[in-house]
């Protein structure tokens, strides 16, 4: 055995590739740690780059890339003996199978370990020095060997063993390297599937166990770690990580065991006897036959070549699809698509989204990378096929032109690609049918699979042919393809971002059932033309330089290449060159001449310059808009619009204003012309920033007004490199005023916000929002400082096939030619925030009668895309229930109309404008809501309707904590409507997701976590924590009390201009309705970051009689206060917390038979409760009202007390 180990070591040490592997691993780790190319884990922001969690994620990511190294080293040791035919020599020596296999395994595994040490060394080396290219070292903690050793031992080492064992098994039993690669790909798919499972709360545990790399278990274990924990804690070898390691470790050991049992340590002599017998009989028959040579004709024309290509292509195709690795990869792909479709793949709140064709295609798209891998891999195999079986000399001497062989290999591979795609398409269709969504959109399958994916596969296929032909070494070819792929990742980091530099990049975009592929098809087609032009050149060159015969020296191939350069070849190359260059020029003209192209670094630099140049104007006195009128003409077919109108600007300050600063839209497709009535001149133009300072001929005295006319022309020209405009589209235009219409003064929204970006641009780190008490902040609403409330009137025209909608009431509708005009006017002042929408809609209408007779009837309308009627009833119902609850509990609805309009799923949100709610196609229209699901369309509708109160009636100040007044209150309002309409289980399910989202959000915090009343636009706080806190608040002090407070708050602040209310104002209303004994919860919930660790340690019961049971509970409670990074400090306990007992309900589910708040004033507490039915479970905070990072241990099964003997 030692001999074999020594042999493997010597063999490996004598091969340069061993050192190259080490170098690759070392460099990957080094580059990942010493540059910003790779961002792994939660790094960025406040999480340190050498935190163990970050290094773990990084090492795991590198392991995914480096899996090919493990497979290359572990797959071959036994295989090599077969390939070199030394098997007979080895097997006939007096060694045992055990010695042979274990020797080979151990020897190779030692090499794998040595190579993997590059990971450790590279990472440590990369983070131990101040490299000149590294901007700052602020993101590094002092060096600690354990930061690296901890992930290495827990993840890297076990992974290496597991993969080594699996690959060793595959290589030794499969006797083909392809088997080993197939294993690698399937493991990688396992990782992909686990990733999709992770997105779902109920499947996370499964993902944690199933992920062969351990990523899933890492994610589940660390998903709630705060910034502080991420920076200080090591990865624990317990819980899911331990289980995952054990399960996969067992798989590794089982693989080895299986191999030791099954490996046949004898020679493979296999002349079958059966055929021989039959043979002799036939031979006898044959003797009588006269053998004469038939006359045949050799044909060499073009048609013969076509026949040859057909025959050869089919031959190659059949060969590939019979390959065991191919079959296993394909089947694994199919299996995983089904698994994802049926186990995973739900949307927010784990709600199933209808399996539309585009979703089925998206699911299949998860495997795009592996399509590329399989393509590149089999390209190498097929190019080398004849040489691998040593038939090349026979083939090469056959009289077919060079292109026939290359073309056949190419076509064979294309057939394979089509075969895979057809198979997956069938899967997609089957899944659609099984899932009960039988609307098969063939055009989606065709475009996405046979346009987009197939094009990508074919491009990589040609690249593979080209590389293999040129380097003429299979594995060097694979290596180059890998390096090529990696280099594309690196390129983006050095500022090369243009899609024209990224081989094969051509996106057909996100499919929307409203807008289909929209305007994406044009650039997609051009980019494909461009890439296929290049590919054709590659292809021609590959034919010219393909080795035929045995000469492989470059000089000879060059000579042969010249010989082969026929007129046809030349014409092909020149033609392809013209296509490539021509389409390239056209793309460049579109992306860089007609449109503006900027890479992200330049974009950041521009924003920094904007701030440096213009920040001086941030606080100068400027007038405010009080009246807006605009004519908008939309041209959906050409994706253009024109808008002309006016603002009436009023000087609300106490200074005279003689200069007006206007920020025009910076969109380069848009031009803006301005004029002021009463005379004006241009003072300064900052052309780069589209910022102009105007002098007014007659200065505005306080209280004076001026009318500003503007003309905006938006013209879509050509196409953009990326970030193409999805606001103005063929069907489903949706934009708001802030993006395109002129605004007043400096826009601090353009400033860079992330600390990292600001440091990079040498700007001071800034606060995300103004302080709550900042008078400048309190003087402006969350909608900005351009206006308080405005009067609003708009005429929108659009193509007559569409309906155009804006806030306000329809005054008049008329047609002119093929255009239709809608005149909307709002009859009360509204916030300066309005949207323009146009699409081909179906409408359903209803009315809502307010609960108070004196109030007017409200028209309810839903404008949706045909075919999206699944949830419109739920939305309609949501509007009614929400309007009723809010009118009853807060104040009357201020409008006589409420409209929901669907817009394409390029963006996934719903947004509340005055009496109109644009609602994304993606988040409510295509969800398949089942009985026990959170009714997402209902909830989103109720939330948006609530904004008509919280945002439109009461508009808050634009300062820290503002979202607690709009978003948190809308969450609360929607929750109360849901509570009234749905079972408690659904509310519980909803809150479970809110808790998860809040805790996850903390992990990814880039700057600092704020208490709710100081929230700085952090969605995980104002939405998610907001829901939890508000639900708990109404539970503690009563729904009525909360509503009373909100009603008063509304009365005092609704329909008011500056000063605007802040979170501090709202809290005082809450405090008013909260009894003294519970005042602390206001502090805990709104003013601090408070978390609980509640746990039930012991739960027993004693039966007194059938209707009397005594339950003994031991529970523990810790209350923490966390700082902005998540450092926790235990707090003194003086809290009221629920204690609850469950019994089995009539429906078989647990139902609460006891729920009471008890005063908790120490960590360990015991309770003795008497209940009337047999208890099953009991615990503290049993329905998770408090924020708790381990909500599952709050409740425990109750066991019957054993009598002491």
């Amino acid at each position, binding site marked *: 055995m030692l001999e074999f180990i020594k042999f493997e070591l010597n063999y490996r040490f004598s091969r340069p590739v061993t050192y190259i592997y080490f170098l690759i691993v070392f460099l990957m780790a080094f580059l990942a740690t010493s540059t910003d190319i790779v961002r792994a884990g939660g790094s960025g922001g406040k999480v340190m780059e050498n935190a163990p969690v970050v290094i773990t994620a990084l090492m795991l990511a590198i392991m995914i890339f480096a899996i090919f190294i493990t497979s290359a080293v572990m797959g071959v040791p036994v295989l090599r003996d077969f390939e070199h035919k030394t098997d007979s020599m080895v097997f006939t020596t007096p060694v045992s199978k055990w010695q042979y296999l274990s020797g080979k395994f151990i020897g190779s595994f030692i090499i794998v370990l040595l190579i993997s040490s590059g990971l450790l060394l590279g990472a440590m080396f990369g983070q131990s020095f101040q490299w000149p290219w590294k901007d700052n070292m602020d993101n590094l903690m002092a060096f600690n060997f354990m930061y690296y050793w901890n992930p290495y031992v827990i993840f890297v080492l076990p992974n290496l063993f597991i993969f080594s064992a699996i690959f060793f098994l595959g290589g030794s039993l499969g006797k083909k390297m392809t088997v080993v690669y197939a294993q690698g790909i399937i493991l990688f798919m396992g990782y992909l599937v686990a990733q999709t499972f992770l997105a779902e709360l109920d499947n996370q545990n499964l993902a944690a166990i199933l992920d062969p790399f351990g990523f899933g278990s890492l994610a589940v274990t660390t998903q709630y770690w705060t910034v502080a924990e991420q920076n200080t804690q090591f990865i624990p070898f317990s819980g899911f990580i331990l289980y995952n390691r054990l399960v996969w470790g067992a798989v590794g050991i089982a693989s080895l065991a299986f191999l030791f049992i099954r490996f046949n340590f004898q020679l493979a002599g296999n002349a079958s006897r059966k055929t021989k017998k039959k043979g002799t009989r036939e031979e006898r028959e044959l003797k009588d036959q006269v053998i004469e040579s038939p006359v045949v004709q050799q*044909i*060499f024309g073009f048609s013969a070549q076509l026949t*040859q290509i057909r025959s*050869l292509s089919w031959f190659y195709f059949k060969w590939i699809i019979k390959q065991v690795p191919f079959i296993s990869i394909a089947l694994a792909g199919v299996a995983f698509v089904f698994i994802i479709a049926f186990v995973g793949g739900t949307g927010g709140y784990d709600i199933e989204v209808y399996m539309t064709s585009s979703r089925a295609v998206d699911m299949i798209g998860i495997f795009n990378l592996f399509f590329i891998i399989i393509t590149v891999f089999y390209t190498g195999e097929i190019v080398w096929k004849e040489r691998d079986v040593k038939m090349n000399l*026979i083939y090469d001497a056959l009289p077919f032109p060079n292109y026939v062989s290359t073309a056949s290999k190419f076509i064979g591979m294309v057939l394979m690609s089509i075969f895979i795609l057809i198979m997956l398409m069938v899967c997609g269709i089957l899944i659609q049918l099984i899932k009960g969504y039988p609307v098969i959109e063939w055009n989606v399958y065709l475009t996405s699979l046979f346009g987009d994916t197939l094009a990508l596969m074919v491009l990589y296929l040609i690249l593979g042919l080209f590389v293999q032909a040129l380097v003429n070494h299979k594995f060097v070819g694979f290596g180059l393809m890998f390096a090529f792929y990696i280099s594309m990742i690196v390129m983006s980091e050095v500022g090369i971002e243009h899609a024209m530099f990224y081989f094969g990049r051509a996106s057909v975009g996100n499919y929307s059932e409203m807008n289909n592929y929209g305007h994406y098809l044009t650039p997609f087609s051009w980019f494909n033309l461009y890439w296929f032009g290049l590919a054709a050149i590659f292809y021609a060159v590959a034919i010219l330089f393909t080795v035929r015969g045995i000469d492989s020296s470059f000089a000879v191939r060059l000579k042969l290449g010249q010989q082969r350069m026929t007129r046809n070849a030349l014409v092909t190359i020149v033609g392809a060159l013209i296509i490539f260059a021509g389409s390239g020029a056209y793309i460049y003209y579109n992306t860089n001449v007609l449109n503006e192209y900027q890479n992200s670094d330049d974009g950041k630099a521009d924003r920094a310059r904007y701030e440096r140049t213009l920040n001086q104007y941030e606080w100068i006195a400027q007038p405010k808009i009080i009246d807006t009128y605009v004519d908008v003409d939309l041209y959906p077919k050409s994706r253009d619009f024109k808008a002309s109108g006016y603002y009436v600007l009023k000087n609300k300050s106490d200074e005279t204003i003689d200069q007006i600063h206007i920020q025009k839209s910076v969109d380069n497709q848009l031009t803006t012309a301005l004029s002021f009535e009463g005379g004006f001149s241009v003072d300064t133009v900052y052309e780069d920033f589209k910022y102009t300072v105007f002098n007014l001929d007659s200065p505005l005295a306080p209280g004076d007004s001026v009318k500003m006319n503007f003309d905006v022309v938006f013209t879509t020209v050509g196409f953009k490199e990326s970030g193409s405009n999805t606001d103005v589209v063929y069907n489903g235009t949706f934009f708001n005023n802030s993006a395109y219409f002129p605004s007043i003064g400096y826009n601090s929204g353009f400033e860079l916000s992330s600390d990292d970006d600001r440091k990079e641009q040498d700007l001071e780190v800034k606060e995300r929002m103004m302080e709550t008490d900042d008078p400048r902040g309190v003087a402006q609403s969350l909608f900005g400082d351009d206006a308080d409330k405005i009067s609003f009137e708009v005429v929108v025209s659009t193509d007559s096939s569409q309906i155009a909608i804006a806030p306000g009431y329809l005054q008049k509708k008329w047609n002119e030619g093929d255009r239709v005009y809608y005149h909307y006017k709002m009859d009360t002042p509204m916030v300066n925030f309005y949207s323009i929408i146009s699409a081909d809609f179906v409408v359903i209408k209803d009315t809502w009668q307010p609960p108070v007779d004196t109030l007017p009837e409200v028209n309810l309308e839903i404008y949706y895309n045909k075919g999206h009627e699944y949830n419109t009833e739920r939305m309609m119902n949501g509007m009614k229930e929400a309007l009723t609850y809010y009118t009853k509990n807060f104040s009357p609805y201020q409008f006589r109309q409420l409209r929901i309009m669907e817009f394409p799923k390029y963006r996934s949100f719903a947004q509340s404008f005055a009496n109109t709610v644009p609602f994304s196609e993606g988040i409510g229209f295509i969800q398949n809501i089942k009985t026990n699901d959170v009714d997402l369309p209902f909830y989103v509708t109720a939330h948006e309707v609530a904004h008509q109160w919280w945002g439109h009636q009461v508009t808050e100040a634009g300062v820290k904590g503002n979202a607690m007044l709009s978003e948190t209150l809308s969450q609360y309002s929607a929750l109360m409507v849901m509570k009234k309409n749905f079972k408690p289980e659904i509310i519980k399910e909803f809150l479970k997701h809110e808790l998860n989202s809040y805790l996850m959000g903390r992990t990814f915090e880039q700057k600092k976590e704020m208490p709710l009343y100081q929230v700085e636009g952090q969605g995980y706080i104002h939405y998610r924590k907001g829901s939890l806190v508000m639900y708990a608040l109404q539970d503690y002090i009563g729904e009525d009390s909360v509503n009373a407070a909100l009603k008063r708050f509304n009365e005092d602040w609704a329909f008011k201009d500056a000063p605007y209310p802040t979170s501090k104002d709202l809290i005082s209303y809450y405090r008013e309705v909260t009894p003294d004994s519970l005042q602390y919860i206001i502090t805990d919930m709104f003013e601090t970051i408070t978390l609980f660790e509640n746990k039930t340690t012991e739960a027993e019961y004693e039966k007194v009689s059938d209707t009397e049971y005594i339950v003994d509970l031991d529970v523990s409670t810790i209350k923490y206060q966390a700082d902005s990074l998540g450092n926790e400090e235990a707090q003194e306990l003086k809290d009221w917390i629920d204690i609850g007992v469950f019994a089995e309900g009539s429906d078989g589910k647990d139902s609460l038979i006891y729920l009471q708040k008890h005063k908790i004033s120490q960590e360990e507490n015991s309770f003795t409760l008497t209940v009337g039915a047999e208890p099953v479970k009991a615990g503290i905070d049993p329905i998770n009202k408090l924020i708790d990072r381990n909500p599952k241990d709050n409740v425990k099964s109750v066991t019957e007390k054993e009598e002491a003997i």
Partner: protein
Amino acid sequence: MNLSIQNLSKTYPNGVQALKDVNLEIPVGMFGLLGPNGAGKSSLMRTIATLQEPDTGSIQLGDLNVLTQKTEVRKVLGYLPQEFGVYPKVSAIDLLDHIAVLKGITNGKERTKLVKSLLQKTNLWQHRKKGLGGYSGGMKQRFGIAQALISDPKLIIVDEPTAGLDPAERNRFLNLLSEIGENTVVILSTHIVDDVKELCTNMAIINQGEVLKTGNPLEAISEVEGKIWSKTIEKEELPTYQDKFNVISERLIAGKPEIHVHSDGRPDDSFAPKVADLEDVYFSRIKESTQPAEVAV
């Protein structure tokens, strides 16, 4: 249609000179290329088979320039390489059919007949459906010749076809070769002298890239007729004899070496005259060209 080879030279990148100014005129009929392993036979054959580029020289097949009109040459070429593999899981009939397509037999019916006749001719018909991976060495060689014979090539190149075959298989194979039409140039390379003796009307002896001798085998034998002497000696005496005489070959007969000496006159009385055969021609030529001699039998 003659094959004419002029001044052909080839040096491999590793410095080995495989062909040194080779000149050969090969008429129709069976031509034997005789030489030890590594003599350059395969290099020469591959060059003729359009699979390798020479450094200098030219090859003409009738009107065709073999080095530039490769496709034309391939149309009339049948080639059986020295070592070749097959797709183990593909049956003989399928693979032969497949190769026939590539040889331009695009008419399906014709092809079916042709494949059948070739498989029958090579005695593989009964094994036609068997995967080639299960073929014995001889069967594989026969398959090799079957594919080389597709569409009556004008130039057939068979490189060491009998190496590794048992005597019965070898005979079978040679019989096959002998049936090939008379209008065809057949080049057979071998290191087995008997192959040439039994089959070829013309031959060349080649060693270390050089042509040592060309001509008709019988004429070649007559050149050494009466100059070959044999003697049975003791093993330990061998070096002495090798020093003293022009020993061209030795072989063991019943455990004792019998040496053959090339000498114009009888070396001494202990030597007996031997009837010269082609082997003696071969060994004497090789011996001349290689000092010290290293001969494999």
